[in-house]
């Protein structure tokens, strides 16, 4: 001991408490770079407004557009801020059935965001598991998974989603289609999007598995599954987070595209994409607001999420710090 005593510190020197997770977050580089980027702060605010508006739509929306008892057909085609037949004021006008466009956007964003989040989550779980397995195991497992990914990547994502949607619709009984349609949509978008996660995770996992801390865990005799989950996974999550954020914007747009094409959410419970499609019918007869405002909402939402993803990518890239 005596030979190394200069390095030997007493126990009381440091308080044996780690800083809390919040304190560490507000002290981190990420938070600093967030507060320094006005565009990011604005995008985050817009996304936050959308999420809050979507979550609390039944309480925030001035009308319930899906309650037939509240609808007044005579109020149809009221322009934004215009005088309605019933004397109600509609901020963004009404559609052909007299539904308040502002309220339908809130309810539509609810469905769009729900489908987006769930699809990204599904794609993430699938992609991360397969990517981790391929990267860590290597060999024929890796080849098989990655060839499937390559084949899928050679089809446009929207085509894959359309295919899955079509198959599911043919297989499900008609009575169940109404309630199942959202879940089918989630699976379709998720399945068309997992490849990105799998590829990223595989690449990072292949680098991490050769690092000595993974070998140390193998020497100790930790089960391979636990090594993957506890050692490799936390170290590959950074890039995945970035893809997931940008993927959220893409999933929302994919959902809107499918709904716009008429294979998505039915008009009785419309998402943003369905709203745009319905409004499209009236675009040339002068009722521009029915399609314009849901469209603007979609653009704003997708753009903000995308900008957030871009910022996150730069913030997590050590070379750009």
């Amino acid at each position: 001991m005596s030979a190394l005593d200069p390095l030997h510190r007493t126990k009381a020197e440091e308080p044996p408490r780690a800083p809390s997770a919040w304190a560490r977050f507000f002290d981190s580089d990420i938070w600093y770079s967030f507060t320094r980027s006005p565009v990011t702060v604005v995008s985050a605010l817009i996304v936050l407004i959308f999420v809050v508006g979507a979550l609390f739509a039944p309480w925030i929306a001035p009308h319930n557009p899906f309650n037939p008892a509240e609808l007044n057909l005579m109020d149809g085609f009221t322009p934004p801020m215009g005088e309605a037949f019933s004397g109600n004021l509609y901020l963004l006008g009404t559609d052909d059935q007299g539904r308040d466009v502002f309220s339908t956007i809130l309810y539509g964003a609810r469905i769009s965001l729900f489908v987006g989040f769930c699809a990204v989550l599904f794609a993430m779980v699938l992609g991360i598991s397969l990517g981790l397995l391929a990267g860590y195991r290597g060999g024929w497992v890796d080849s098989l998974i990655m060839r499937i990914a390559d084949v899928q990547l050679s089809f446009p994502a929207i085509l894959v989603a359309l295919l899955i949607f079509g198959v599911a619709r043919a297989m499900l009984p008609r009575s169940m289609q109404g309630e199942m349609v959202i879940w089918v949509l989630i699976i379709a978008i998720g399945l068309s999007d997992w490849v990105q996660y799998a590829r990223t995770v595989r690449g990072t996992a292949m680098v991490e598995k050769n690092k000595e801390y993974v070998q140390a865990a193998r020497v100790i005799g930790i089960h391979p599954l636990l090594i993957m989950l506890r050692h490799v996974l936390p170290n590959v999550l950074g890039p995945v987070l970035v893809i997931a954020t940008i993927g959220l914007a893409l999933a929302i747009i994919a959902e809107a595209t499918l709904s716009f094409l008429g294979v998505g959410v039915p008009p009785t419970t419309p998402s943003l994409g369905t709203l745009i499609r319905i409004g499209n019918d009236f675009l040339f007869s002068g009722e521009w607001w029915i399609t314009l405002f849901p469209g603007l909402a979609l653009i704003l939402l997708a753009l903000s999420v995308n900008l957030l993803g871009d910022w996150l990518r730069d913030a997590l890239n050590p070379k750009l710090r």
Partner: protein
Amino acid sequence: MADVAPAVLGSQEEALVEVVELSKEFDVSPPLLTRLLQGQQKSFLRAVDEVSFSIPRGRTFSLVGESGCGKSTLARLVVGLYAPTRGRILIDGKELSRLRSRREQAQVRRRLQMIFQDPFASLNPRWRVRDIIAEPIRAHGLMSDRKAIDRRVGELLELVRLTAADGLKYPHEFSGGQRQRISIARALASNPEFLVCDEPTSALDVSVQAQILNLMKDLQRELGLTYLFISHDLAVVYHLSDYLGVMYLGRVVEWGAARNVFANPQHPYTRMLLDAIPDLEMSGRQRIPVRGEVPSPMDPPSGCHFNPRCPFANERCRAEIPMPIPTVHGGEVRCHAVEEGRLTEEVVRDALRRPLAEEEVP
């Protein structure tokens, strides 16, 4: 003594680790499709070739050699990170790669641990030091009570001259030497008897190297540890070893008690390596470097692997693989010239003094 090859070293002492005719080949063939299309053969790289040695309990066996000679592969074979192609590794009589059940494997694994070369890669950057050190304890179920584990981790940190409070920090908050000590603490957590150290000091400053080496020596004395020490630094090896093996291109060309190998090297490669150690007495004198590069292990020279660089090589060296022969000091050497008694003092001095230019001309 010579008849029982692996036991020679520890003939008086009980061997904890025995490596018997161990070989490892890596498949470095191109992918199947490429092979089929271009009509190529499968190709193998023999990283470790028929290596045998044994380490007595509580002793240090060092392996030295140039980069790419198979030292690290051997270390990874011994701890079970690679499966051997041929041969056996016995740890206290048990062979890890033959044990089928996880429970039996865990019993052997608990008794051997490894210290890695790069202290910046061997600790998971997202784990607290406390959890890193506790991992072997939890994995082997040595303790279940959280408080007991925390206490044990604190003890281990103090054993490697850190403080218990350091357990709450993350690896990036430490210097290279401190991290290597954390690595040692983790290796000691499961009370192992045998530590494989793969160049544990080569990534560190010279001043810090001495601290780590002294710590390792202290721990060996206190805990009765057995070391397999891999290094390319002969000065470090001299400081630490009881026994020394010299590797060249996958083969152990000479081994014996470290003192004897240093004082009385037999194999031409060992002589040249030792000649390359800088020391004060030699300053100003013309130094004789080991000539040439290590040949590709993909296509090793026939006969003795060292023959293209050896000043004493003759036809037999190019044709026939030398077998281990006992040395006067109880070690073994693989060299035809030594066996034939060709290496007299004058011959060696002449050969080593010959100007370099003459040899280099093709």
